[in-house]
């Protein structure tokens, strides 16, 4: 395993994405990407007793579908890497209990999926694992009750608020075979530019995304020209504008048509999602559906996928702390 610069792994033995699956909730299933998702939930409760169990069931089903697509059983995959937004990542760990696989629980807020890809790829490239299932999920109803208000409370959201996606994405990484290759991964630094509005996560995360993209370009001596698409996780429409401004201010070339944000792509503006989609499941499902399928069908050759998280908790917000952000990035290349 080699490294370039301060933050970037170069995977000497690039793992391949042998299979991937995405599941989206009803609102997400009415959005512009509806046709790309592998499954759309008819019941956001998935027949469970609570929203948390519903999210966990969504993770389990997505993981199971991914394994089925690769023709593997849970017992033959070396590890599950993933997380969600619930306290102590219960949705993922409860799913891991049912799957019975060795488990690496991760928390990077909405960056978790890309964090899992970067780490899973490192463990496979180094020979520690032969295969790894990387997943992340979020559910609107679990996030609302944990971070905001009860669902039936009559409140208004400000225009900068994002909408937590009910969605899950899962990718199976293997040491060899056919599929999209993960060639490099860049770790993020925790960046805080003193944004304290817990509704404005796009603003809190944009500086972290900029920092990671800049680190990736600097470490690998690449520019935006080397990529067909640069995908960000869930900055939303406002956060994407802020990232463009940050790149412009720093002299980092970022063509307007190459920068795509998953959160800004998940809903139509008329769907009342305000600033766009967020949540671990946003970048996970959109990249497993829309981005990876477009690489596989030859439309895209090389994509830089980044995911960003706002590392706040209700406690830190109530104590008046500002919102630190983090972002990870991985380079995906057609096999």
């Amino acid at each position, binding site marked *: 395993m080699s490294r370039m610069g301060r933050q970037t792994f170069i995977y000497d033995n690039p793992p391949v994405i042998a299979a991937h699956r995405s599941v989206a909730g009803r609102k997400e299933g009415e959005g512009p990407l509806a046709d790309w998702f592998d499954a759309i939930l008819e019941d956001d409760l998935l027949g469970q007793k609570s929203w948390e169990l519903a999210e966990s069931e969504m993770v389990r089903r997505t993981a199971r579908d991914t394994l089925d697509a690769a023709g593997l059983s849970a017992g033959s995959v070396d590890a599950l890497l993933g997380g969600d937004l619930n306290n102590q990542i219960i949705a993922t760990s409860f799913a891991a209990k049912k799957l019975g696989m060795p488990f690496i629980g991760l928390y990077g807020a909405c960056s978790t999926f890309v964090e899992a890809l970067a780490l899973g790829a490192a463990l496979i490239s180094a020979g520690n694992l032969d295969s790894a299932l990387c997943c992340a999920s979020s559910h609107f109803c679990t996030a609302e009750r944990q971070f905001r208000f009860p669902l*039936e409370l009559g409140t208004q959201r400000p225009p*900068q608020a994002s909408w937590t996606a009910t969605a899950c994405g899962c990718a199976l990484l293997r040491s060899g075979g056919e599929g999209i290759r993960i060639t490099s991964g860049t770790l993020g630094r925790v960046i805080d*530019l003193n*944004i304290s509005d817990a509704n*404005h996560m796009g603003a809190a995360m944009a*500086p972290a995304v900029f920092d990671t993209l*800049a680190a990736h370009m600097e470490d690998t001596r690449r520019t935006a020209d080397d990529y067909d698409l640069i995908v960000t996780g869930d900055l939303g429409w406002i956060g994407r504008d802020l990232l463009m401004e940050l790149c412009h*201010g*720093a002299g980092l070339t970022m063509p307007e048509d190459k920068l795509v944000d998953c959160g800004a792509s998940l809903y139509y503006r008329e769907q009342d999602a305000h600033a766009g989609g967020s949540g671990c499941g946003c970048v996970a499902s959109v990249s497993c559906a829309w981005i990876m399928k477009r690489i596989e069908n030859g439309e895209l050759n090389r994509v830089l996928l980044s995911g960003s998280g706002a590392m706040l908790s209700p406690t830190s917000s109530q104590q008046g702390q500002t919102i630190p952000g983090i972002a990870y990035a991985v380079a995906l290349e057609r096999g």
Partner: protein
Amino acid sequence: MSRQPYTAARYRQLVADVTPSSRMLRGYVRAFWVGGAICTLGQFISLWAEKLNLGEITNPMFTTSVLIFLGTTLTGLGVYDRIGKYAGAGSAIPVTGFANSVAAPAIEFQREGAVTGVGARLFTLAGPVLAYGIASSVLVGVIYWIVRGWLL
């Protein structure tokens, strides 16, 4: 290439410039008419109570009870959150909004059980209103008790 193109202060300004503001005038108009409509409804209930000859003490309590019943019922039917999304403070400030703020956590946290769920979380939103409402009424009472000799 600079890794920190913006200072926190400059970034804050950029965020303020890029972020659209809430549509205040539209919000005021909606809050005004919905809040006014709820209060007018309350007035009609009060007039009805007068016809029923419930008495000076029971009449206002009857009005409040009916409004709380309506707010709670509309919360249970999944309607009040939509009214609140439209009207904002117009439906949050009247007593129906107070009922909504108690009924919503009651519904949300029933899965955590009767004691640690509904019991413990029932007043998570209404709690501050109760605490400071009662505290301020005690304070006003004490002030009244001290100055009433001069007033009368």
